[in-house]
């Protein structure tokens, strides 16, 4: 059956789209273009919130980072922790998802290299299952929730009584954990909270930023790149940005071609768009 040029474009084999997408991502990786970077308001607020804290403050990172989301969340987390190290904060870290402990191992290594002492300057809490329940439990009884840490185990742990001693909470994840952090910890103790999220969920987290429940948001690989610039900690975030640009351009191009072809053939029905 002859569909004509536009008919062919309209029903383009998805494998062609995929192959070209691979190619356009690769080219700028070999030949960086150096496109400009714009700092977004949410990242700026996140940076300002951290920067405003006095040196020696106690901060906590709760992370649900996983291999699937690490491409975005890892550069963000590293940039944030490097900033924390510069500010000489005391740090508590807790993996809120089963896949996260392996990433915390890496952050602990980074802290060790910067002269932090485990138990005194930073502390890693063990993974607990139960998702939202753990956040609820931490908010009402932090020490009871982590009952496996005894008095004397850690000077840092002994110096605090409950969540209200924490000066800043940073929740990292691509799921629901930021909502649990504000619903239980921020709501109960007023702990300033920022979140590190995948670009996907920025759209739904934005209302909570507008309402002040989040003091700032680092979102996606661009958020990581922006934070690296703000905190002056060079890292992995910036390196992927040119490839991002080209990938976006290709997707927009296919969409435009699809539309031109659609109007040229007065379109047949394709799935999607039903509500």
């Amino acid at each position: 059956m002859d569909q004509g040029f536009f008919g062919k474009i309209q029903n383009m084999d998805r494998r062609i789209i995929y192959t070209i997408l691979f190619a356009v991502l690769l080219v700028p990786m070999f030949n960086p273009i150096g496109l400009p970077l714009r700092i977004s308001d949410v990242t700026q607020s996140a940076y300002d919130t951290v920067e405003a804290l006095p040196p020696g403050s106690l901060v906590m990172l709760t992370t649900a980072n996983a291999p699937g989301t690490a491409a975005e969340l890892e550069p963000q987390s590293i940039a944030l922790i490097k900033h924390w190290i510069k500010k000489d904060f005391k740090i508590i870290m807790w993996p809120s998802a089963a896949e996260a402990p392996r990433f915390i191992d890496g952050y602990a290594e980074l802290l060790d290299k910067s002269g932090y002492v485990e138990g005194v300057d930073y502390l890693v809490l063990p993974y607990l299952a139960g998702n939202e329940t753990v956040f609820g439990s931490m908010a009402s009884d932090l020490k009871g929730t982590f009952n496996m840490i005894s008095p004397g185990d850690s000077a840092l742990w002994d110096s605090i009584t409950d969540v209200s001693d924490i000066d800043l909470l940073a929740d990292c994840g691509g799921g629901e954990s930021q909502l649990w952090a504000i619903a239980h910890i921020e709501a109960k103790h007023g702990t300033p909270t920022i979140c590190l999220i995948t670009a996907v969920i920025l759209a739904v987290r934005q209302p909570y930023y507008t309402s002040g429940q989040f003091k700032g948001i680092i979102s996606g690989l661009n958020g990581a790149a922006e934070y690296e610039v703000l905190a002056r900690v060079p890292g992995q975030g910036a390196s992927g940005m040119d490839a991002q640009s080209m990938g976006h351009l290709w997707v927009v191009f296919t969409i435009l071609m699809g539309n031109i072809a659609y109007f040229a053939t007065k379109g047949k029905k394709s799935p999607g768009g039903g509500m």
Partner: protein
Amino acid sequence: MSTNPGVWLAAFFTLAIYSFLYGDNPAYKFSEHLFVGLGAAHAAVMGWEAMVKQAWTPLTTKGELWLLGALIGGVMLLTRWFKPIAWISRIPLGFMMGVAAGLSLRSAIDSQFWRQIQSTLTIKLDSANNILYIFILFTTLTYFLFAFNDKSGFGRGIKGIGVIGQYMMMIAFGASLGSTIMARLSLVIARLSFLFKDWLGVLQ
């Protein structure tokens, strides 16, 4: 090119999964089945470690007897593998459901409902943007009214406002899709950088 066998293994799995974009094949089937096994095992190991650290050790070394309740409940959960007494597993399940429902009600009423309204009420209708904000919120929420008869005049009116809300939601959905492309491309870029930098070593 890397000489580390771990990197080669990782490269094999990366390519095996991408091969599915072309079509189903034995390398994908193998990787998929292995991953299902590893995933279940990792979850179980994490569950086991958390249970030991949080319940078993404090109970046996510090004598925190109140933890016994949870351990018994946990064992009851595992009865589901034995058909005649599988019903016992429903008891802790009922408890878990109750706690989960209580907590999600707490966060729904507090941070998702109450404080979102509070924040809205501080908006002053003194700029086009603010008026638009309230207008969109109003029409969107109207779309989610259900208890009316859509054939009555009143119902048609509500439905009309809801239709405007539907259009507004489309803008939000478009924004979500647009910002998601960014997130997902990051993942491919990370894999490509693994393949060409860590494995093949052709990228600096």
